């Protein structure tokens, strides 16, 4: 089995508070794992730790067998993109937001305009959205643009935090279909945090309950 991501004996904390201990799992190419657990159990912190926005207290994270130190942190994050529940869009137009990651030093390609136009259409957004001011977008539109921005980077792994929480059922289906298709055709793997057990059942190949790795209060519960 080709592992895209290996998480070994990972412990994470938020500030002084320990959240998870001894978490080990592998994510194969094209696989999607659902992360479950009550609010505050460390799901978002885990995603942030996996992409290296914060440090684990212990453990190793490997992307195709290499640590972020070996790959270089910006290149590592580019292949393992974190999409927050409410993706932050920068001031300016949607086009400028989508272009921005391709202006960074570690960008190896230019903005895939054709793919972006296709995604806009698939996610129910018009081509004119490209010139819209991000301050005027709805939460749902922001969430879709955040997903398109992440997908356009052609990552190996997506770290999705409640990726469809602000979307209508039709668009949710489209997003799930795109993720499935990208998994089959390009080997895109994903860790998906969702409060909707049905979504995890529909979208993911397997699930991990973080309660089993929780320390302190949650473990007692």
């Amino acid at each position, binding site marked *: 089995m080709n592992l895209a991501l290996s998480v070994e004996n990972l412990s994470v904390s938020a500030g002084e508070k320990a959240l998870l201990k001894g978490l080990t799992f592998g994510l194969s190419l094209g696989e999607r794992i659902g992360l479950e657990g009550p609010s505050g159990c460390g799901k978002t912190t885990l995603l942030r730790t996996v*992409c*290296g*926005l*914060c440090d684990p207290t212990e453990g190793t994270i490997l992307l195709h067998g290499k640590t972020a130190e070996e790959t270089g942190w910006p290149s590592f994050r580019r292949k393992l993109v974190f*999409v*927050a529940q409410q993706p932050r869009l920068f001031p300016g137009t949607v086009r400028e937001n989508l272009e921005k*990651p391709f202006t*960074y*030093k570690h960008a190896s390609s230019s903005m895939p305009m054709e793919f972006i136009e296709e995604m806009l259409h698939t996610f129910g957004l018009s081509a004119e959205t490209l010139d819209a001011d991000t301050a005027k977008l709805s939460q749902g539109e922001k969430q879709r643009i955040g997903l398109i*921005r992440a997908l356009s980077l052609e990552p190996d792994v997506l770290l999705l935090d409640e990726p469809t929480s602000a979307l209508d059922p039709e668009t949710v289906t489209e997003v799930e279909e795109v993720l499935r298709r990208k998994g089959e055709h390009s080997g895109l793997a994903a860790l998906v945090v969702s409060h909707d057990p049905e979504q995890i059942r529909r979208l993911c190949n397997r699930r991990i309950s973080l309660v089993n790795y929780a320390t302190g209060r949650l473990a007692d519960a």
Partner: protein
Amino acid sequence: MPEPLSTSIIHIDALRLVLSTCLVLVAGLVSVSFRLDMEKRLAVAAVRTVVQLLLIGVLLRTIFQLDNLWVILGLATVMAAIAGRAAVGRLSLKTEGLQGFTFVTLIVCGLATTLFVTKIVVGAHPWYKPQYLIPILGMILGNSLTGLSLCMDSLMKAFVQRREEIETELALGATAWEAARPAIREAVRKGMVPIINSMTVVGLVSIPGMMTGQILSGTDPFEAVKYQIVVMFMLAASVSLSSMGISSLMFRKFFNARHQLRDLPVRKGE
């Protein structure tokens, strides 16, 4: 080129100084008539003005007489430390270690600009001649302090309140510098705005203090103007250098080698 004017200084004796207190009394009368309840504060401020300025007068006279490099550098260090403390005092958000940063920035950028002006532009001999070095350094520190605090305030707010935006850039593969660059650019710009504004209106809206002082002490106005041009340019250099310097130090404090934005403890300023 106009001929230098023949001017001389009128010395202010003790009696004339006492007479000038009438002017403070005017301010006191305003406070009384409008019931501002500021008479006591005004009196304390007036006494402090006299005492502080007399003390600095005595100190400067002693330092001028000593004409010793180490004494002058010691005074420069104290001035930079006070200015650094004042710059941090103005911030609306603070974290540990900023005072050290402002001190290092002010002493390095302040002394570098001062050295350039006294040695190369003015051609003072020796370069640390206190008559030139101390007022020049004083002006540089005073103006850099304003620029520095505006720049730092902007950066503190960006690194704390715009954390999500910066982390989004990092998550999309930006280096720490790329993610911080918009905030740094904005902060340096804010730091430089006051001095650029001053340069734009100097001589039109106000006659700068140093130039006024030189004219009052009998210097030909044209000579005073030339000094003022040098002063404005040196302030532009020192403010931009120190804004850049402090931004670089703060960037290193807030970001680590793993291109992460550190979650530093922050407290609100008074």
